């Protein structure tokens, strides 16, 4: 399944970079005359039928050549690899922040329903989902960056630069995690096997953390993988606000100059990461959950 998905993604990226926008015009630059464009089309072989160009495209892909940027003329792969660490760090900080909020509050909300902590968790989930994350970014900049001057608001050299962006992106990922953990824990705490354990006299504390948590956390793994994938997509907005030099910012810059090879490479990269992440999550789930691991003997 994953392989098929990758194939479709590469087709879409190929269409993005070669069909929807004439590469020859891109390379020649805006002010080039028609003859130049025709010449380029000749030399680069853009006039060949699509299928054969697609096969070349796949060939390059295999050797890691994602094409060359129209503007900087540098291989796109290098441009991406330079910026990937920044985005990865942003995603990592945001995810840890989201989990740090979602896990404790979600569990507490399930353990003590209809209490303040439960209402807080519901409020955080709904509010978190309703806040447009770019607006949150702006507010944080005005508040912490300008008024209080505690934190830097642009650039990506020190860790402090990642605090505000991580909060912004974190609030984007936290609500679904919070809901899932709360709902998962409620299901598990109401299940037959927890009731059996209580009937056998297992102490409440051990019950919650050993017996209940392990069951409730399983679905959270796959959702976190999916959320991490979404965050890579979401980073484009946050990075452009905070001027973090990650692949999101690169995507945005090349967007306004319609530097197609870069865009399609980033889309390809993010999709591949998403697929790998979901595969990893499935493997981890299969390992953690014995029901998936071994059949009935």
């Amino acid at each position: 399944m994953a392989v098929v998905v990758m194939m479709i993604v590469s087709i879409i990226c190929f269409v993005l970079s070669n069909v929807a926008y004439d590469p020859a015009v891109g390379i020649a630059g805006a002010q080039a005359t028609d003859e130049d464009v025709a010449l380029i089309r000749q030399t680069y072989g853009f006039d060949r039928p699509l299928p054969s160009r697609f096969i070349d495209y796949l060939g390059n892909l295999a050797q890691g050549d994602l094409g060359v940027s129209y503007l900087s003329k540098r291989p796109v792969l290098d441009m991406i690899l330079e910026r990937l660490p920044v985005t990865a760090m942003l995603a990592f900080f945001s995810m840890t922040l989201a989990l740090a909020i979602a896990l404790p509050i979600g569990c507490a909300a399930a353990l003590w329903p209809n209490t303040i902590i439960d209402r807080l968790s519901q409020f955080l989930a709904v509010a978190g989902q309703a806040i447009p994350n770019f607006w949150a970014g702006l507010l944080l900049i005005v508040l912490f960056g300008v008024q209080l001057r505690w934190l830097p608001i642009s650039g990506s050299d020190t860790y402090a630069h990642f605090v505000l962006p991580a909060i912004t992106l974190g609030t984007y990922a936290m609500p679904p995690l919070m809901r899932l953990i709360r709902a998962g824990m409620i299901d598990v705490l109401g299940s037959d096997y927890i009731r059996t354990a209580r009937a056998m006299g297992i102490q409440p504390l051990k019950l919650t953390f050993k017996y209940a948590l392990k069951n409730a956390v399983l679905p959270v793994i796959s959702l976190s993988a999916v959320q991490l994938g979404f965050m890579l997509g979401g980073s484009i907005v946050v990075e452009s606000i905070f001027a973090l030099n990650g692949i999101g910012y690169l995507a945005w810059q090349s967007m306004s100059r319609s530097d197609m090879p870069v865009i399609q490479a980033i889309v390809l990269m993010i999709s591949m990461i998403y697929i790998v992440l979901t595969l990893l999550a499935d493997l981890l789930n299969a390992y953690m959950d014995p029901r998936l691991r071994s059949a009935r003997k």
Partner: protein
Amino acid sequence: MTTPLLEARDLNHVYFLRHGFLKQPAPLRALNGVSLTINEGEILGIVGESGCGKSTLARILLGLETPTSGDVILEGRPVSSYPQRERALAVQPVFQDPYGSLNPSMSVEDLIALPLHVHKIGSRQERQQKVARMAEQVGLPRRALSASPNQLSGGQRQRVAIARALVSGPRLVICDEPTSALDVSVQAQILNLLLDLRAEHRVAMLFISHNLSVIEHMADRMMVMYLGRVVEAGSTQQIFAAPAHPYTAVLRDSVFSPDDDGGVPDLGLRGNFPNAMNMPSGCVFHPRCPVARPECATTEPFLTQAHDASRQNACLFPLN
């Protein structure tokens, strides 16, 4: 011998179960050479424990699944020659779960009228009259017709399902555990109702249940199934009086009745329920059979034909 209403010949059915992350799907033989006949106005009971294949058999006879091999003959013609709609005119279902067999978003009246609507039987008024009469026959209060299924009790819902099954005048109703989900007192009401309707509408019934005493109460002829095979078949009274197959005897002894007087019998069943993935050799019941002999583990018994063709059993050393 008049042609039977419904006949199944040597039905075999295999499911392929995916198990484990990378392993190949393993074959599960759900049905193994099952044959049966149902005549006009007769109730045939099928009894067996979970995993014996009785529900798979029901799904095949209802046309929901095509068997891996073997054929089903309805009124002398193979079922494949009937389009599903025409087949539905002759055979109607009643399912086990009263809470799952009625569409919650439809009114009781529309639910009962569904077969009439599908087969375009009669005009609107005629359909309403038919449904009203049917609802009264199954003992539903008048107000129930406009109600939604969520407002009815388990027993009332099962009455709606029975009304739906009979309103289009089928010749055979296949009941898959119709009263298993009901309380004893409600079950009695439904069993009485089924008997009355059988007499009134001259409809044949295939009655599937895991409860031996319900089968004993309802069925003219019965079949005992174990791990996808028929191990004994014949007239209910004779089988109960003197079971031939050891499994039938064990089944009968494990059914408790309020008249018993204390003490749990030792059925002598050895080992535990075999895994359907790796069938035991020879007679499939031999690992658990209290009277098993060495030959049972090697030779596979066939369903013998008793002299007057009324009694059959699949045991090398029948009890009587």
